[in-house]
């Protein structure tokens, strides 16, 4: 095997919090040398849904091959790894444990630092590949499981500004898509359908939750969209109207938070940040407000281990090293 890049600090990242088994090697916390994602989506399509115990078992089967593949693709020998970063939570505890135990074992055997990271924080750090954005920044993390508005200060300390009170944005997209017969998860199919629709044809509510609230709620919008669907609203118009309502609230609350805090940079992250309508609307609003905007490449929007390695590297730089008693935490707090 060829030697790895000399002189670079090499972080091995591991992610097993949900449906994806992922391993990555990142140099100096910014250059992705290899990024391997072994998705279980195909497997679950056969079963017709997620099977948690099978998920844990498959993480176990897929993780070491994923780590080996990441090392091979990056041309890095295992012994050259300088640190191991792993998603500690939140997630299914059985799934998380596979990653945490593997990371602990590797770090202990290699005698290198170990660091545990929060899954949502890792998503934010996808914006630091290959180059760190300006800080402080207001970050909107939107995915199937999360909708969080946070601020990351210049010292990379995180403060939660608001979160969803019910459905995550991506969850509302996926659930409506399933009801519309677009399959599950069907957020991306709903976005495609929306391109041919008139967003004003089916008026849908926006949940602002009070003028200064940074919290989100998507269940009212979801229910209103379902009611419209059952009343025979044209599907392209409904998709467009739903997307416009969700995007408007996400963008406005993010921009308002930046304005209120006097922060000049916005970061998008999470699976829904791959949505073209959200990116476009956020770019327009950022330009209007004179804000910088960053979003990860589409590949790094969904679950991956490169973002975990990056987040771990930056945390280690700040002295946040985990002990050998690091444990998976199903309901890990976002701090």
């Amino acid at each position: 095997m060829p030697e790895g890049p000399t002189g670079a600090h090499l972080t091995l990242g591991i992610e097993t919090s949900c449906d994806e088994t992922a391993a990555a090697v990142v140099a100096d916390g910014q250059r992705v040398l290899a990024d391997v994602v072994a998705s279980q989506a195909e497997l679950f399509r056969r079963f017709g849904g997620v099977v948690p115990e099978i998920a844990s078992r498959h993480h176990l089967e897929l993780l070491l091959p994923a780590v080996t593949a990441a090392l091979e693709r990056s041309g890095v020998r295992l012994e050259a790894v300088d640190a191991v970063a792993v998603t500690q939570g939140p997630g299914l505890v059985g799934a998380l444990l596979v990653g945490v135990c593997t990371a602990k074992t590797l770090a202990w055997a290699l005698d290198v630092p170990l660091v545990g990271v929060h899954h949502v924080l890792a998503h934010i750090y996808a914006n630091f590949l290959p180059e760190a954005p300006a800080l402080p920044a207001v970050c909107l993390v939107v995915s199937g499981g999360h909708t969080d508005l946070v601020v990351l200060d210049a010292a990379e300390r995180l403060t939660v500004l608001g979160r969803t009170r019910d459905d995550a944005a991506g969850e509302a997209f996926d659930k409506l898509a399933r009801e519309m017969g677009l399959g599950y998860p069907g957020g991306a199919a709903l976005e495609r359908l929306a391109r041919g629709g008139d967003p004003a044809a089916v008026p849908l509510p926006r949940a602002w939750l009070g003028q200064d609230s940074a919290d989100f709620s998507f269940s009212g919008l979801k229910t209103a969209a379902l009611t419209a669907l059952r009343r025979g609203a044209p599907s392209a118009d409904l998709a467009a109207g739903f997307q416009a309502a969700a995007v408007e609230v996400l963008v406005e609350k993010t921009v308002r938070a930046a304005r209120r805090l006097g922060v000049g940079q916005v970061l998008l992250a999470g699976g829904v940040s791959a949505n073209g309508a959200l990116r476009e609307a956020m770019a327009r609003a950022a330009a209007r407000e004179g804000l910088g905007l960053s979003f990860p490449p589409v590949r790094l929007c969904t679950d991956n281990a490169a973002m975990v390695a990056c987040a771990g590297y930056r945390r280690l730089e700040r002295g946040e090293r985990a002990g050998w008693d690091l444990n998976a935490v199903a309901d890990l707090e976002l701090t």
Partner: protein
Amino acid sequence: MGQFPMRSWSVRCPAAQDTEALGRALGRLLFPGAAVALVGELGAGKTTFARGVLEGLGVHGYLHSPSFSLVHEYPGPVYHLDFYRLEQPQTETALDWEEYLGGEGVALVEWADRCAELLPPRRLEVRLEVLPDGVRRIRLTAHGTALAAVVAALAATQGEPAGL
């Protein structure tokens, strides 16, 4: 069912706050080991009701839908589960779910009908139905003596006798 005493009671909730308040009242009455199965179509108010139950149980902080993550764990322990993403009978995983559904904790299960075989026989079923005028009709059916007493107490807190 039928091997355990059953007790049913239903109530109308005009607004989401009413659904949440009913959940809160129920949460105050639940005991360790209780399983609550929530059933109702998308948008019926399962998560709203569950949020109330969690608050009634003294759980605070970040409460949201577990559809994606399948399980949210809170101190108590209280488990907020969601079978939305599960389609198949989960026979292979029975042991896995027993930790949540048969143990010391209170378990709230959204979309419980998607994998009804996982539910313990002693449970409280909560059916949420959207009426044509948007009002939610919530029907609670207890299977088992202890949960039947909970339903009777809940009906009493709402100022109504629990019919059988």
